[in-house]
């Protein structure tokens, strides 16, 4: 139970860090495209600032939003896995992807079609964010599989 909670926490933190990475990169890449003097130092500084600000000083703490999404998606997956026999890593990967995609798609509905996560405005952005959700879910599923084996 304790190990599962720890893995769940790591999965949520991983997704949060990756979503923030995508948010940072989408802004930084555009700034580079308009000849703003972006250096590696500025990129890293912006990323670490975002890690703090998007969780502690934004309108909604991102980590809490992702935690809610993942908890719901993982719970549903756990129930489904009682009847459906598929690899846990794949099932939870799908759940993680679905959770992040749901967050990206549903948030605008609450804000007059406004994308609060600017990195998720384009189809490419949505796809990358979903992929990061998939990776985080895969990590969680893989850890669960390892526990079963040991």
């Amino acid at each position: 139970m304790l190990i599962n909670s720890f893995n769940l926490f790591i999965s949520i933190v991983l997704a949060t860090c990756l979503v923030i990475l995508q948010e940072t990169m989408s802004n930084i890449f555009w700034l580079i495209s308009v000849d703003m003097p972006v250096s590696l130092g500025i990129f890293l500084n912006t990323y670490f600032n975002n890690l703090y600000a998007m969780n502690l000083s934004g309108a909604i703490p991102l980590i809490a939003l992702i935690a809610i999404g993942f908890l719901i998606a993982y719970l549903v997956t756990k129930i489904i896995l009682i009847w459906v026999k598929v690899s846990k890593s794949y099932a939870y990967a799908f759940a993680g992807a679905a959770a992040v995609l749901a967050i990206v798609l549903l948030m605008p509905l609450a804000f007059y079609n406004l994308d609060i996560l600017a990195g998720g405005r384009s189809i490419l952005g949505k796809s990358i964010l979903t992929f990061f959700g998939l990776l985080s879910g895969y990590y969680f599923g893989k850890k669960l599989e390892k526990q079963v084996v040991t």
Partner: protein
Amino acid sequence: MNRKIFIFLLTFISLYTYSKELNYSYETIADNLSHPWGIAVIDENDLLFTELSGQLRLVEDGLLKPEPIKGVPEVLFAGQGGLSGIILDPNFNLNKKIYIAFSSPDKGKSTNTLEVISAKLSADSLEEVKTIFKASPSRRTAAHYGARMAFLDDGTLLVTSGDGFNYRERAQYLDNHYGKIIRINTDGSIPDDNPFLTRENAKPEIWSYGHRNLQGITVINGIVYENEHGPMGGDELNIAEPSKNYGWPAITYGKDYSGATISPFTEKEGMEQPIKYWVPSIAPSGMAFYDGNLFPEWKGSLLVSALVPGDVRRLTLNGSKVTEEEILFSDLGRIRDVVTSPDGTIILATDGPNGKLIRVVTK
């Protein structure tokens, strides 16, 4: 003895402060209004105003006419969209022409755009309604329209066009109307001295660019002042000039609502700096220049209405610098617009579904 002097001074300072704070009072012109948004003063007792939900209303001889003015085009009343900015033609007394900016739904589509019409005001309806500007391309969002207007001294019309929220980067490109100040003639044609008229792939109506959501604009002695909402922090007061780039979103003093850094840069060569910015945000919503005699201590000030927390900022200008800021009318809630009347009174529109028009008078 010292104690007596101290008490006397304290009493004097208290009375002075009290009288200074309360040298005005409020009169309600109209209440129970549906999101009042833009005001156009006709004379001391008459004015027109828009309600975001789609009504154009007339106050005549100080009294609100119960029926809205007919003939107003269909608007998209959603999010921040609706019937918005209004301005009288400089020759209104002769031609009765007015201009209205609003969010216009695209027929049969889920998109909408900023549209400006000209029309002739008759007794209780609009006539000769003509579209003179439509922002392109259309948007899916219902936010950041700008939708304020001002006349330049040469009779051309400036229209503020917001960045549409989701389309912020496009404010830096000239092939669209997001995040721009537009300059047109009153018949919708394009002035032949517009700065990007001959530039390839540029929209010829563009006058300045790199703006976010400009909701206040006024022209004083030929100088164009505009205020715009920043994101979380970074609201700006700018002096707008033709062809200039105001930087959004490449440079900004604000952060995104998610907390993310939109840009780590606040300045760059070739991009203009605001003459004032606010962090945290005040959500500047309207702007007027006070040139009346009723409040002589405010003469020559710029009045900026603010939604957050809800007040009017009186800014003292010295050339292109703001030298003083005073907070006024902070007991009325969110203020959507501020205008001045020829009699020197100030008229405010409070925001929301039960909005009011309030006249500020001397006590």
